[in-house]
């Protein structure tokens, strides 16, 4: 999935996330094939960016979305700190770690 400005929409791109209007209503649903006409409509609706299917090629976003499991673990360990001594907190830690890393792999 990658985020692109609506100006960069070209025919055949596929929406990876639904697009919401200002009032929160769904304007376009996930999986829809985009084209330049829809791109202009989105601009009229004052939508700046959309998420489309495909590999993320911006290095800035790569850092944000593709974090290695090791980095996830370190980040969580720092966040949980001494609270990991509690067995419940350890369970939460493990569940969140698995959740975050499996999300990245999907």
């Amino acid at each position, binding site marked *: 999935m990658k985020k692109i400005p609506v100006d960069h929409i070209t025919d055949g791109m596929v929406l990876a996330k*639904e697009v*919401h209007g*200002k*009032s*929160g*209503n*769904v304007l376009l649903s996930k999986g829809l094939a985009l084209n330049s006409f829809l791109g202009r409509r989105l601009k009229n609706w004052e939508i700046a960016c959309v998420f489309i299917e495909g590999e993320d090629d911006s290095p800035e976003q790569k850092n944000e979305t593709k974090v290695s499991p090791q980095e996830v673990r370190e980040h*969580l360990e720092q*966040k*949980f*700190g001494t*609270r990991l001594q*509690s067995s*419940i*907190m350890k*369970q*939460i*830690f493990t*569940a*969140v770690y*698995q*959740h*975050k890393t499996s999300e990245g792999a999907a």
Partner: protein
Amino acid sequence: MQNPVLMQRLLDSVTTIPTLPTVIEKITRLLQNPQTSAEEVGKVITTDQAIASKVLKLVNSAFYGFPGKISTITHAIVILGFSTVKNIVLTASIFDFYKKKGGSFTGFDMEKFWVHSIACGAAAQAIARHVGHSDKEECFIGGLIHDMGKIIMCQYLPQEFGAVITRVAEKKCLFIEAEQELFGITHQEIGSTVAERWNLPRNLQDVVRYHHNPTASREYSATAGIIHSADIFIRALDHGFGGDYGIPTMNEQTWTQLGFPSVSLSALLDAIDEEIDKAQALLSLV
């Protein structure tokens, strides 16, 4: 450190905080009467145009699942029911309150605080569903307002708020730990004092007062416990910023009381993500 003089001064200063619109009080009173009709409630809401238009915006958002179909308050009540509409009115008023004067404090990102509040509401709703708690919607509002004491401090006690933020940065501790050390009074007491003045429902008052120590609530330890756990999960998942970078410890009694040991945490985390995605749409309404 308990400081009664300082505590009194803090509590006194919150008496200057504006009350919630009278429309909330009127609705709460009307809803106590089982004879009340949808029209009557609709009429009361419509007397406050600002609230009424916000309610319609919220009702028609993807969050409530009837996008673009509801054009009158009475219609909203018929479709969604009294208590949902009451909750929407509350949500709309809270949005209004949060928006006032906010964001002026350097070093405190109000936008991210919003994400924290909305994510907590959404997560609380997901948890309520998973553990079979009946008050899902109130859990959403509970999450939304659990940290209202911080907003009040930021807006009305900027000096104290600044001191807490500095202490958090220095000691890398929790916001509440810094408050306890500095003042002996926390955003829980400050928030719930105001919640009480606003005549918010008792369970919501308790959420604000006890979300860090839910078992201290006599009647609403389950609701307060759901918000307590939602707060922990969303911090671990990195949603928004509530004033510090740590994670509070889960209350063991709450963990058992809510039945977490028999809940699939991985399914719960998926449900939380999904609910947060839906609630994100609300952010655009703020």
